[in-house]
């Protein structure tokens, strides 16, 4: 049941999906669960819509976690965000205003096949689990497979590489399903947020080129406010800026695709840490990591309700 779900531990895919069904059952006023499609191995791609039911064309924020299988803190954060959203709707005026005025579409596990594989077989699997009969290596980097400057600098065209871009853009059913959903509702989406690990960074477009986005000053302000809010929790410092200069150039990324699709605010979080535990962030750090990231995401969302 919901009360038994422990948000301070990592959960398997099955546990996360059971939790989603349970949350959807017990909070029909704030939650709605649906699937945007199926993964390569046929698993449903579940999304939770969090927010007070209201006008069908409410502005929306998309948050996906678990694009890269081994980055387990991502799915942990998505669960945390839903739990906090619901728990604080009544008493926290900021959260109530956000959920009254925005819909949050939360995808706790984007790469469902890869995540399951990282639990059962290879803890450090990154890619999807698609097969290409011509090659023995499996999987595509789901953050190099989006139809934006696809398979250019910072991505690999070799199927055995961890940054393999895939045989063609949106070749991965998981990417295609999310892209199709976002395309269909793009007028409503004000922000796209993708949760990754590790490096402690907040990144925004562009990844594929050294250039300044047209609404740079607003996005930079939103990022600044977000990392300031994050710092206020435990004093953890995040770097922020365009992905191409703050991290490195890479093509076919989801934030560039979202931005080019017309979503004005697109961010990728690289959560804790900076290389002490790396992907093996202990469960004891789930709470502080998710608490501080919660502040950053709500800061971004609050900014969407103001004019910039």
């Amino acid at each position, binding site marked *: 049941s919901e009360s038994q779900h422990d948000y301070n531990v990592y959960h398997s895919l099955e546990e996360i999906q059971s939790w989603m069904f349970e949350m959807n059952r017990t909070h029909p006023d704030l939650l709605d669960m649906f699937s945007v499609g199926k993964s390569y191995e046929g698993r449903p791609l579940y999304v939770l819509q969090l927010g007070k039911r209201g006008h069908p064309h409410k502005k929306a924020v998309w948050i996906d976690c678990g694009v890269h299988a081994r980055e387990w803190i991502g799915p942990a954060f998505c669960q945390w965000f839903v739990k906090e959203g619901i728990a604080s709707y009544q008493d926290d005026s900021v959260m109530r205003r956000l959920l009254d005025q925005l819909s949050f579409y939360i995808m706790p596990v984007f790469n469902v096949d890869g995540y399951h594989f990282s639990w059962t077989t290879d803890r450090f699997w990154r890619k999807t689990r698609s097969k290409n009969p011509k090659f023995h290596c499996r999987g595509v980097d789901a953050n190099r497979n989006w139809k934006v400057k696809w398979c250019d600098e910072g991505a*690999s065209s070799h199927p055995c590489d961890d940054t393999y871009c895939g045989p063609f853009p949106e070749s991965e059913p998981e990417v295609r399903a999310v892209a199709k959903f976002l395309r269909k509702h793009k007028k409503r989406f004000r922000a796209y947020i993708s949760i990754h690990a590790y490096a402690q960074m907040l990144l925004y477009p562009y990844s594929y080129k050294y250039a300044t986005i047209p609404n740079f000053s607003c996005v930079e302000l939103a990022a600044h406010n977000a990392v300031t809010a994050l710092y206020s929790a435990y004093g953890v410092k995040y770097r922020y800026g365009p992905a191409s200069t703050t*991290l490195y150039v890479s093509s076919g990324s989801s934030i560039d695709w979202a931005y080019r699709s017309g979503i004005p605010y697109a961010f990728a979080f690289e959560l804790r840490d900076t290389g002490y535990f790396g992907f093996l962030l202990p469960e004891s750090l789930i709470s502080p990591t998710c608490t501080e990231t919660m502040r950053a995401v709500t800061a971004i969302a609050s900014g969407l309700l103001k004019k910039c």
Partner: protein
Amino acid sequence: RLYNNRYAGDQVFRITPGSDEDVRVLKDVLEHVKVDFWQPNSASLIGPNATVDVHVKRGDTRGLRARLKQEHIDHQVFISDLQREIEKQTGNRSSRQRR
């Protein structure tokens, strides 16, 4: 043991190439050892004074350490036994319970 103990003895190195020459040498060294790039995501993204975290198989740790020492490239081990760290991450929950 989780993952059938497949990560026992594996390590994660943090390598910091200081100069462009270090970068060139490091890329060459890592061409000959099968490592899993944690950060950045691939050898092509290695740059001077940017840390490189790589997962090194048990059988390759000694050789890689010797090569890095020989090339005077700054490095340290930030996870000395990956299997132990993996087991620590999810506490004492049995793999069956996890699965």
